[in-house]
């Protein structure tokens, strides 16, 4: 299959692994003191587990599975607010499939549906807008979730709603931006992460420039990387080469998709509709400054929270869950006392078990028998 098989060729994979091995031997890292690389995105985590890439690599190299899965870091209180809106009889609440299963304090959107709420799964925010047009007598709320990957689509859907004069369509904004989180991670004490495999899809929108902070200020190399096995291994090799050569910079492995400057049209749409300011709560990570994304004043007539005024729902993470420690590389999923017992994909307790792309869910799915 084109655009898939050529990036999975076993011979290429073998060659890349050999070269990574060679480079790692030129460093001082060992199995006891491995080089910690964070793959930021859940898509990478999933691919690493699915193809078993970590098992092909030398023990002197360790993946830390990052916070880059928007469902994983969705605070339970936000789900409760959504459920409250969804339970109103005049509302049709639409969202992506993954977000439907995330448990809040009073169940998930899926359980709200079982209790009579009109909750629908959509593949695109435009599908939600179409539902609003089909049901002019109902109020349609799109629960917008995701990093810069899905933000442009949300922004353009609102632009479309305004252009079409649709007045029964609203957006519950749970968009989040990547960089404040990475900065916050790196500012925590005893974090040993030495480099980043940056997410290809977010980068396709934001470009390479935002990562300069990590390389220039935090002195950690970054390689923007694609999602196929040879992409990930090549990204890793590029990082290894930076250590061996003593360089620290932002490089782009995923040039077939990611332009240096990103997607300017998408950035423009995001900038017109959304603003990032103020602190925001992240599940598993706590409150992070400058990470709150909301609608600009000019777009607030579409803001579901202003329209429906759900009660504020602060919910603290359970202190027993070690999500934060897993996210920062201080422990592995199976080291958490809740893993696989109290916390499973069917009954997710912690942030990283919630989405199939979360580090704990991936570990549970692919590695449970080794735990």
């Amino acid at each position, binding site marked *: 299959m084109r655009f898939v098989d050529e990036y999975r060729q*076993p011979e290429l994979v073998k060659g890349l692994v050999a070269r990574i091995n060679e480079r790692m031997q030129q460093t001082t890292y060992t199995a006891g003191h491995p080089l910690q690389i964070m793959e930021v995105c859940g898509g990478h985590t999933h691919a690493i587990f699915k*193809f*078993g890439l970590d098992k092909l690599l030398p023990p002197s190299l360790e993946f830390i599975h990052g916070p880059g899965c928007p469902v994983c870091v969705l605070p339970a209180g936000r789900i409760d607010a959504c459920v409250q809106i969804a339970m109103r009889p005049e509302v049709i609440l639409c969202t992506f499939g993954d977000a439907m299963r995330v448990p809040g304090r009073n169940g998930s959107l899926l359980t709200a549906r079982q209790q009579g709420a009109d909750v629908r799964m959509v593949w695109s925010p435009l599908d939600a807008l179409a539902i609003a047009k089909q049901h002019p007598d109902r109020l349609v709320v799109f629960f917008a979730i995701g990093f810069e990957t899905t933000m442009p689509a949300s922004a353009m859907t609102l632009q479309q709603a305004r252009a079409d004069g649709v007045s029964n369509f609203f957006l519950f904004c749970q968009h989040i931006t990547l960089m404040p989180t990475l900065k916050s991670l790196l500012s925590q004490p005893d974090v040993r992460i030495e480099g980043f495999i940056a997410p290809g899809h977010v980068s396709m929108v934001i470009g390479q420039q935002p990562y300069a902070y990590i390389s220039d200020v935090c002195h950690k190399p970054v390689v923007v990387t694609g999602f196929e096995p040879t992409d990930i291994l090549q990204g890793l090799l590029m990082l290894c080469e930076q250590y061996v050569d003593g360089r620290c910079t932002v490089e782009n492995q995923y040039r077939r998709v990611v332009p240096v400057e990103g997607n300017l049209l998408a950035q423009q749409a995001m900038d017109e509709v959304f603003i990032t300011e103020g602190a925001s709560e992240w599940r598993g990570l706590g409150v992070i400054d400058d990470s709150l994304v909301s609608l600009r004043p000019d777009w607030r007539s579409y803001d579901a929270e202003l329209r429906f005024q759900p009660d504020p729902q602060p919910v603290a993470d359970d202190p027993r869950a070690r999500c934060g420690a897993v996210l920062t590389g201080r422990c592995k999923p199976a080291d958490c006392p809740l893993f696989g017992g109290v916390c499973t994909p069917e009954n997710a307790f912690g942030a990283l078990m919630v989405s199939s792309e979360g580090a704990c869910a991936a570990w549970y799915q*692919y*590695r449970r028998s080794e735990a």
Partner: protein
Amino acid sequence: MNKQITLAQGNGGGAMQTLIADVFINAFDNPLLATGEDQARLPLSELTAAGDRLAFTTDSYVVDPLFFPGGDIGKLAVCGTANDLAVSGATPRWLSCGFILEEGLPLETLKTVVRSMADTARNAGIQIITGDTKVVPRGAVDKLFINTAGLGVIPRGVEWGVKAIRPGDRILISGTLGDHGATILNLRENLGMEADLTSDCAVLAPLIAPLRAIPGIRTLRDATRGGVTAILHEFCRGSGCGMQVDEAALPLKNAVRGVCELLGLDALNFANEGKILLMVDPASEQAALQAMRQHPLGRDAATIGEVTGDGQVRLRGIYGVSRVLDLPHDEPLPRIC
């Protein structure tokens, strides 16, 4: 007759009699049904001549949409139940059918579904010999649900079952994975992929019949809801053995693979409606493959793995790394059959 189904057509009166005569009896037409009694009366002598055990099964069909490339709910209601019989080694003979219809269903829709059932059954040598119809108010069901139960005869000497599975046995599949699931997904979720997706919905009895003569067939099952993964887990639980499947050996249509790659789904978990998973003694592997490949339904038959002793279901990836093949907690796509 009304162009739409009315409540009167399910309440036992004249309207129901007319519906049954015009739509069902007419289409299913066979001597056992034509007697007009409250029950079909089955000749035992015919059964005992064909084998020494009856196979009996039932299934309900709620697929949405009712019509899809490669089939419809009527065809599915015959194939699904016939296949549940056939995987025991039985020859499917007779089906019952119960319809639950939503008030307002276009009569033409019902007729099309019934015709499809009748054609599928006739082509497979199966008779639909008894049935029931209920009509419920608008909204109480979605359009049309069907239940079928089936009877078949298992020939003497055919003793397939999970308990016969041994470590070292080969795992075979009769063709490409996930065609039905991918077809329904594309249609239902309005994915709009203009891909060559067709359900594999088919009666598998003619593919299975020649396998009876091959010694060393341990057991087989049709890989419907939950896909091949679900069956592997059933075999694992039932036998206490482990199952190791080779990712590189899985037969997949390009269109199905495309759907999976795009949406991050796994064809091993997709429903099939025309595929069997077989556990076979290694000495009989080639004979079983050859027998299946001689039939159009088994053209892409392949060996996909091996039974192990470790009690786990595992998938060996394309780089040789083996991982747990987890059984998903819930059905990714409800109302698929």
